[in-house]
């Protein structure tokens, strides 16, 4: 049995957040992934981000597809409902879940096989629909659960563990998301928690579709020399353009900002996202510029990380559809059933 319980007793000195919960309250089951898997760092970053946001865990809905990445919702937010659906189809399930209850914070976790191969159609269309959610891809360039086949995000020329090069062009989900209209697009690295945690927090509070492509090395099948998704490659070739610091609503701003241009983005709930541009010419509000920058870096073999694009005034699918404020799943007969008198009128219109 792969189900392992964690001790329920917490350390008495663990700090609590605004709703009186400790970080442990945001954890899930013990991970069954390989030791050192980047995905576990992503889960840990989600735990930290959610705890720091002081959102009660049951107000999250977790959705995933199939694959190593899609198992991870078991390993964070144990008091939230989760749905491990079918391969490549998490976006549709997330869409339905979000339509049913717009008040929940929706976190989708997918992988590169799940989102860039079998589910690329669903990925593209959830971006278009602007579902209000945080969509994380744990991107390791390989099919881990089936033991190391190349995935569609694997760079051309990058080699397998046995040294065989990948012959096909990679799909870059970040470029795709930018092009199709995502209103929050970021890339990060599972080994860089300092960068990842604020991005997750900002993505969760962003109204609209927030996408984070997290390069998350696979220690079992894609962490060797020759891989472009290894810890070493990312540590040497990763280049951050914009670093985000997240300041929750009402929190005192004490962060010590490094020199460079700082820009404050106001989030819908009053919190602030402060962007430090490492490259002062970079404009995170210009979609075309962001796309250009990503592509240029790619040509140079660099992996651009950080918050690449954000539109703080974006709308979400509920606004597009003009649905009522009350979650649709909370409406009953009174609100939904037009009643027999209305039906009499409808009958009359068919005579």
């Amino acid at each position: 049995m792969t189900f392992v319980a964690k001790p329920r007793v917490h350390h008495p000195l663990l700090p609590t957040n605004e709703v009186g919960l400790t970080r442990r309250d945001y954890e899930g089951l013990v991970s069954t992934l390989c030791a050192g898997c980047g995905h576990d760092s992503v889960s840990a970053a989600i735990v930290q981000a959610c705890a720091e946001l002081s959102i009660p865990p049951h107000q999250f809905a977790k959705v995933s597809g199939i694959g190593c990445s899609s198992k991870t919702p078991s390993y964070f937010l144990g008091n939230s409902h989760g749905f491990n659906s079918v391969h490549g189809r998490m976006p549709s399930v997330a869409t339905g879940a979000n339509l049913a209850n717009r008040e929940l914070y929706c976190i989708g976790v997918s992988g590169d096989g799940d989102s860039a191969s079998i589910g690329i159609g669903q990925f593209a269309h959830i971006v278009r629909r602007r579902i209000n959610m945080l969509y994380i891809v744990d991107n390791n360039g390989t099919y881990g659960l089936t033991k190391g086949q190349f995935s569609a995000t694997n760079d051309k020329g990058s080699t397998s563990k046995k040294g065989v090069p990948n012959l096909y062009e990679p799909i870059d989900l970040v470029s795709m998301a930018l092009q199709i209209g995502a209103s929050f697009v970021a890339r990060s690295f599972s080994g860089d928690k300092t960068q990842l945690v604020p991005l997750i927090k900002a993505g969760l509070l962003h109204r609209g579709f927030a996408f984070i492509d997290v390069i998350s090395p696979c220690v079992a099948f894609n962490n060797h020399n020759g891989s472009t998704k290894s810890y070493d490659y990312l540590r040497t070739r990763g280049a951050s353009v914009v670093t985000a610091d997240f300041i929750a609503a009402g929190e005192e701003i004490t962060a010590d900002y490094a020199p460079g241009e700082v820009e404050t983005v106001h989030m819908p709930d009053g919190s602030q996202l402060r962007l430090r541009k490492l490259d002062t010419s970079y404009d995170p509000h210009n979609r075309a510029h962001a796309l250009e920058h990503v592509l240029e870096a790619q040509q140079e073999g660099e992996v651009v990380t950080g918050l690449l694009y954000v539109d703080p005034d974006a709308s979400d699918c509920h606004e597009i559809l003009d649905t009522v404020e009350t979650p649709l799943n909370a409406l009953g007969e009174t609100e939904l059933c037009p009643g027999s008198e209305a039906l009499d009128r409808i009958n009359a219109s068919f005579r």
Partner: protein
Amino acid sequence: MTTYNDFVIRFANVNGSGSASANGMFAKALFRMGVPIATRNIFPSNIEGLPTWFEVRVSEDHHHGRREGVDLMVAMNAETYREDVASVVPGGFLLYDNSKGLDRRLFRADITEIGIPIAKLLLPEFADPKQRKLFKNIVYLGALSALLNIDFEVITGMVSTQYRGKDELIAPNIHALEIGRGYAREYLDCPLPIQLRRTAGLGDSIMIDGNTAAALGAIYGGATICAWYPITPSTSMAEAFEKHAGQLRTETDTGQRKFAVLQAEDELSAIGIVIGAGWNGARAFTATSGPGLSLMSEFLGLAYFAEIPAVLFDIQRAGPSTGMPTRTQQGDVLLAAYASHGDTKHPLMFPSTPKECFDFAADAMDLADRLQTPVIVLSDLEVGMNDNLSEPLTWDDERRYDRGKVLSREDLDAIEDYGRYVDVDGDGIGYRTLPGTHPTKGAFFTRGTSRDAYARYTEAPEAYTENMDRLLVKWRTAASLVPAPEISGHGHRAGIVFYGSTAMPMGEALERLADDGVQLDAMRIRGFPFSQEVTEFLYRHEFVFLVEQNRDAQMKTLLVNETGVDAAKIVPVLYYGGMSISADIIQESVLDHYEKMRLPRLWAVGRGTRGGTPSVQTAIGRGDPGGDSAA
């Protein structure tokens, strides 16, 4: 001899020529005169330029199934003229535009030709060639009003209603009607021996298509989310939902909507959205047809195994593959029953009428919530897309939605030990919780992988088997909740079984067979899994005919598989040409079987409608299976 309210009229047109609105007005006019009708749109998978037919069966006896042969053909399509002329019954009528000479080789001495110079009549009246093309349809409608005795005021009234707001169109339309009517009255023998008369027999009936009725049923049943992908013949259901929900579910002050319609990128996504919504506690449905159902299969297996409510309307069309997208069939029965890999099965509902489409749509929402599983409503193009007479739709204002076993925060507080898949009540159905219900209790991980009663992942054989067996307990619960069969007749040695739109010609077929000395107990199956009544009906008859519209007798396979009935007892009566099955086909097939098997017939005449000799009850060879048949 003049007959009243008893004929088949068929309009042969070119699609995209504006004929649909004229033909629709014709049907509506008859309906408003109280004349019982059934309409059939026989259309191509094409937008403009291909042949299309519209057929109206007029029957004061309320025979609404299709009948072979056409009594009056309105032949407006030169391309199909040859087959159109050939389809007229001897003694029938052919109305055509004789502005140009016709190929005399097609002439038939046994039918009456009615030539009207439609194009010539329009030429001096309308300068715009586009108008002349559109008004051809209106001219023949005007002529038919005289030939068949349609109340002219009914038609002109309809024109005025239809073009309200576009008043400039009313006068020219009425003028075109008068041109046709005037010509017929002046130059033709009016009315024809087949003609119409007003009746009071329609009461409060309505004329509606099954898809619109189903969409209204989904609204009344509390569906808030419709996710779909365009596919004939289901598209009109999603569109009707959006239209009527827009009228019925929009808040007057804010303009905000208490529903969401999403046209998804494909059917996989459509059903995924429905399942995501169902998981999160909203009533959701999709409408599709065969190819879409194939695509949805993987997700249906997930919803079966993870136990999530979902409602799917499959408006069947002729398969396999793309098949005949605009023709009707009942070819998805087996796919729907067992969609997805592994041991999977789904409750089905088979509506036969628009009223049932409405009722079943609302009931399916309750059933899916109660059973926590996908429920598939198997309609088809015949019932879904054609305007048909229907009892008015009804709703009991006292009715409350059955949301099934969903625990509230208070419920959870009162429970010590919650397990999502624990069979507390012994009916195979566990208690659900919805995301966001309780801060610390009731959360679980929904998955398509194997799990124990507490929703924890497991590959332990005992836990897996226990779960699969519980799903069978739930399946038996479902058998008592799906609509029961409708059984008529009792005590006859043989029965006849049918479902869905095959019911439409069945009343007429049974009347005719009774006149032919074949009396059958009848059972209309309305739901799957089969209830005990279905099994008993099969077992208590020596043999049963099973009438369905597919090649492989799919319902027979399902019945044999699920009830264990001897396959040899079931005699399939099959039609799968894409038109709807007619009473003629059923009658002939049953009689053929009686002849072939030398089965005795019971002469129970007395209806006086056929054969002539009334009320002579002569039992031949009843209970004597070896005896000669009466034929």
